[in-house]
């Protein structure tokens, strides 16, 4: 009879152990090597044209999806400014937004972006698999998505998810 308590606890502990370990794994480094970036063409906020071919010039590029209607973007903005000061180049994707408002935002809060792709209809967001804003992507060699973070980018997220990949 004593076997039942033992079995029950073993089962409970192993199920919870698995879930716990998954949580810790998830908070570490994720790699999606198999995810490819679909090529795209678009305009920048300043009217110049841009193609995804340009991303191939860098081994790593950081894409940040933002919009003036998005509260989370306002939250992460100051951290993006900090990253910019550290010399990290961020390519912005102004997602489903209004050009005028976007410029006003950048004037008011500062511009952390080296370039800003204007994705008025969310077509590039669609190709990237964006479900909302803010989202941040790390692209390797201009064709594969190494990291896709949904939500606000802050120091903790940066150190856990992005910094280890960039250091490699």
């Amino acid at each position, binding site marked *: 009879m004593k076997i039942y308590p033992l079995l029950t606890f073993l089962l*409970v502990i192993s199920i*919870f152990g*698995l879930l*716990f370990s998954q*949580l810790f*794994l998830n908070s570490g480094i*994720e790699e999606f090597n198999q995810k490819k970036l679909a090529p795209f063409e678009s305009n920048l906020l300043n009217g110049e044209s841009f193609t995804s071919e340009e991303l191939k010039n860098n081994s790593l590029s950081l894409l940040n999806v933002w919009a003036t209607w998005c509260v989370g973007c306002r939250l992460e903005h100051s951290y993006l400014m900090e990253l910019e000061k550290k010399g990290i180049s961020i390519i912005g994707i102004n997602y*489903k937004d209004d050009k005028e408002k976007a410029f006003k935002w950048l004037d008011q809060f500062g511009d952390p972006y080296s370039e800003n792709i204007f994705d008025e209809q969310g077509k590039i967001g669609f190709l990237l698999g964006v479900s909302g804003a803010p989202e941040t992507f790390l692209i390797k060699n201009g064709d594969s998505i190494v990291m896709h973070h949904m939500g606000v980018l802050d120091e903790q997220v940066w150190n856990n998810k992005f910094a280890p990949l960039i250091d490699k």
Partner: protein
Amino acid sequence: MIPELGNFLLIFSMINSLLLISIAFIYPPKNKRFFLSASLVTFLAIFLSFIALEISFLTDDFSVLYVATNSNPNLPIYYKFAALWGGHEGSLLLFLLILAGWILVFVFFHRDHKYSSAFMNIVLFSLLAFTVFLSNPFERLLPISSISGSDLNPLLQDFAFTIHPPMLYMGYAGLVIPFGIAMNFLLNQEKVKQLEPIRSWSVVSWSFLTLGISLGSWWAYYELGWGGWWFWDPVENSALVPWLLCTALIHSSIATNTRQIFINWTLALTILSLAGSLLGMFLVRSGIITSVHSFALDPDRGIFLLLICFVIVILGFSLFFLKSYSRGLKTDMGIYSKEFMFFINNSFLVTLSVIVLLGTIYPIIYEIFSGGDQITVGAPYFNLVTIPFALILLFFQAIGPLTKWGGNKIDNLNSIGMIILSSIILSYLVSNTFFSFSFYEFVGNAIVLILVQSLALLIFKSFHSKRKTNLSMIAGHLGLAILTFGITISSLNSVEKEFVIQKNESVSVGSTTITLENTQKVQEDNYYGDRVTFSFQEEDRVLKLYPERRFYPASRMETTEAGIYPSIYKDVYISLGQKIGENAWAAKVQIKPLVRFIWLGAIIMFLALFVRTNIKFK
């Protein structure tokens, strides 16, 4: 000011709840009104805190982060009110409010339970602490900026959505009550009679779970535009698991109440169903699984929620094994006895819930052992493994109501045999004449026929005997029969077709011919898009359907509105795909016979809650 007040009240209720627990265990109060007044204070504090958050929503106070991310000034006032539970923090507050309410009602009716409310408060307190420290809905967005709020997701701007979460939470939170009763019983070791309230509380939880789940399924059917009513989505599964366990709990506690048997089953099931409900909460809210419902969240919250769930399961099972397993009551079960039926019921439902749970968390397990590869477990697995089990279980529940307590009384055997035989013949004829014959169709219909005949026989008999009849039970099972019938017919006889269609072209799907009449632009306050008019012939009438593709500028989302022609016998369901060229559209047409029976059955199952249980016809 008001958000700070709300926050303060929330912290106050947390401390109050902790006080109740400590006093109950360290210095059990002699005065039985203590628990009542303490529970009342906790409930009122949470209620006022809920009101405070509602005020922030209704006055568009976007300095509160949660309001800013979930509401919008242009939202109709009704949706502003419901937007409170549109996100993680607010829905948690709603859950706490409901839980505190249930505890208050319980304590009001059962003041003689010494520790029950203390155990319930352990769950309440841990979730309150989780809300206050890790998911505080009153957090301010500082410095205050002139942001006008993002928007409530357009998919959620819908009536069914606004009542789906509260109903579901009534069910989830209700499962805490049986757990408290069981723990109190284990600790006190008093009379088995103390377990009696488990039955009515589990019935209440179960009814609301049924309603909540079916509302979700109905919403998915008409709003997501896929035409399905069940997707085996991880979140649907994590509601299904507690529902299955709660179903087992109801039956087990009936056996416990009337025959004082299956006591250990009942006790274990209270722990399991609460664990199922908390684990479901964890799966949805930790972001460990991606699904339509999941809130994208940080792992800290997940760890805390999982910890709560773990502690409660361990606490429950420790008490269970330390205090009760010496009392293993042997039950005599003849194969025709009600005891045996209930045993089948319990073991099959637990097995089913384990199968569903395993399928849901298997991707997680796989990812760990394969070093990061990801897979998804979809409908084919679930259908393959659950349907045979479900059919056997349904067969037993069809004949179960006719069996009697205690040993092998065979006096009913003739009528049971007759019912089974006639159902098999009838089902064979029906499946052959009206539908293209298939094995599952035949089995499904046979089971429905057996169940309906059993219930009819039960009612017929009660007119001739002086015994009390449980009309609520009959109504509940009848609902299940209607639901099973709807599932069987609609899943096996639906036809669907995907095609590209131009203006004035026709396509035939099954026996229906559908024509694209014209396309027009639509423009409303909160969205714009295209509306396409389709027409089809139904008997001697020409009917029109207007599926749409909409774009909501406020939240920048594109949605499809399916065109649905609903009727009792069949639904014609058209959803639009992409626009191709100038006048052509990709579209999908589905014809679903008897699909309405699924929700009709579920609603009857819910309404059974309000039917009287003890009726004498004579």
